[in-house]
């Protein structure tokens, strides 16, 4: 992997004006382009702040004191934000707050980002249909966005974010209102995505299935980073994170991998059972 094509955070700290303690403290982390990075941690650990820094919302839109250096796929979110912004697709926590506010239909809503980029109408229609299909919203294209359920609104926000075919996806808890089937479909889809993806989620099991890396945040500190396997085999009770179901089950059954570690996802679980028997 070419050096400037990767993700690098060095001593990143963020502090809102008027707050006593920084929200992110001296974060240093690396990842490769095209990887899926799962960001976990309990509430107020700084996950949303990290997403806002990675997307450039901090400090471009929300003012805050940012120190340290960070580049994503060779770009800095700070230097030329409008240009950087065109490379990213961002889904915020509250899906209803992300509607453009002037769209009559789901199709118009997905088209919004594309219209803003001045893309030809014929191309827009094609991209809208593709994005809607990927998020299972084809049947809802002519419906009013207000008529959608919370989970559908989240899928709409994701469809809008991916319609522009971004290099970098930043998803802040994008499945919180989805039903189990919808969530499953989403993670299956995410596994095949080519873009560098940062995803905040509490769905530890799903993250272990698809993420290349897990970053654990606690009180603004990056307390662990590594593959799901590494992170959850060295889980600290302080982080207040549940272990993945595969891990818990294997631990109870003492199904170990050949390395004597416990499995964290389905694939590893199968290997462990195989190795034990």
């Amino acid at each position, binding site marked *: 992997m070419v050096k400037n094509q990767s993700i690098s955070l060095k001593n990143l700290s963020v502090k*809102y*004006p*008027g707050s006593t303690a920084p929200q992110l403290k001296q974060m240093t982390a690396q990842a490769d382009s095209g990887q899926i990075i799962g960001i976990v941690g309990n509430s107020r650990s700084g996950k949303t702040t990290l997403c806002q820094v990675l997307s450039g919302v901090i400090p*471009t*839109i*929300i*003012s805050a004191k940012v120190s340290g250096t960070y580049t994503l796929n060779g770009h800095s979110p700070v230097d030329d934000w409008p240009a950087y912004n065109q490379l990213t697709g961002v889904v915020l926590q509250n899906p209803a707050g992300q509607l453009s*506010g002037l769209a009559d239909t789901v199709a118009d809503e997905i088209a919004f980002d594309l219209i803003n980029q001045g893309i030809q109408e014929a191309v827009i229609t094609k991209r809208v249909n593709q994005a809607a299909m990927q998020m299972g919203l084809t049947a809802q294209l002519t419906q009013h966005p207000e008529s959608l359920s919370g989970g559908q609104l989240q899928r709409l926000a994701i469809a809008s974010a991916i319609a522009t075919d971004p290099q970098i996806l930043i998803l802040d808890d994008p499945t919180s209102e989805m039903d189990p089937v919808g969530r499953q479909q989403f993670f299956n889809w995410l596994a095949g995505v080519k873009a560098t993806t940062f995803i905040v989620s509490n769905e530890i099991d799903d993250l272990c299935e698809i993420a290349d890396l897990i970053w654990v945040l606690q009180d603004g500190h990056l307390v662990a980073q590594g593959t799901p396997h590494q992170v959850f085999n060295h889980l600290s009770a302080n982080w207040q994170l549940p272990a993945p179901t595969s891990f818990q089950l294997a631990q109870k059954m003492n199904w170990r991998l050949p390395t004597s570690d416990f499995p964290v996802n389905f694939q590893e679980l199968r290997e462990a059972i195989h190795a034990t028997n």
Partner: protein
Amino acid sequence: MKMQGLNHANIWRFKLTTATMTLIPAAVGINYVAKALAEGLKLPVWLGSLGTFLASMLAGPVAGAISGFINNVIYGLTLSPISTVYAITSIGIGVAVGVLHAKGWFSSASRVFVSALIIAIVSAVISTPLNVIFWGGQTGIAWGDSLFALLVANHAPVWLASFIDEFVLDILDKVCVAYLAFFIYRQLPQRMVRFFGDDQQ
């Protein structure tokens, strides 16, 4: 706090930032909902300027004035066409609140009362000519209009009768709205006050 730093020179400086652009429709929405709540509870006040008050307090007199203006235009085009002309009154209210807030007249409960009086006068002074032109001086609120009828029957000039009709309604309404806005503003999280008050893109 940001607001205390504002002085006479810069409260009029206005740039339609994206934050203000999304604040104004929300303020109009709050106006609608507050009015609906007041009607639902059969309160003798309108409360329909609560959002305008909050927009002025958060983002200054120009933002408040625009909120007031758009409020009446939207109201006029959807529910009650005549209310469009009272957009002038709403602009006046927005400006008055913004200036009073910037000058610190929303900082304590007793000062809020003075502010409410001034805003009620501003509102009634602008509304009276409109009431005379469109409704012969009436306000459309039963007990204010009975007062109007009484005054006119006793040969009071229409202008005076109409002003009194409007003012008695306004004073009650603006005192209620001013205290509601004062109370709600103090409950707003600091990050929100900073977000809408910041001079950002």
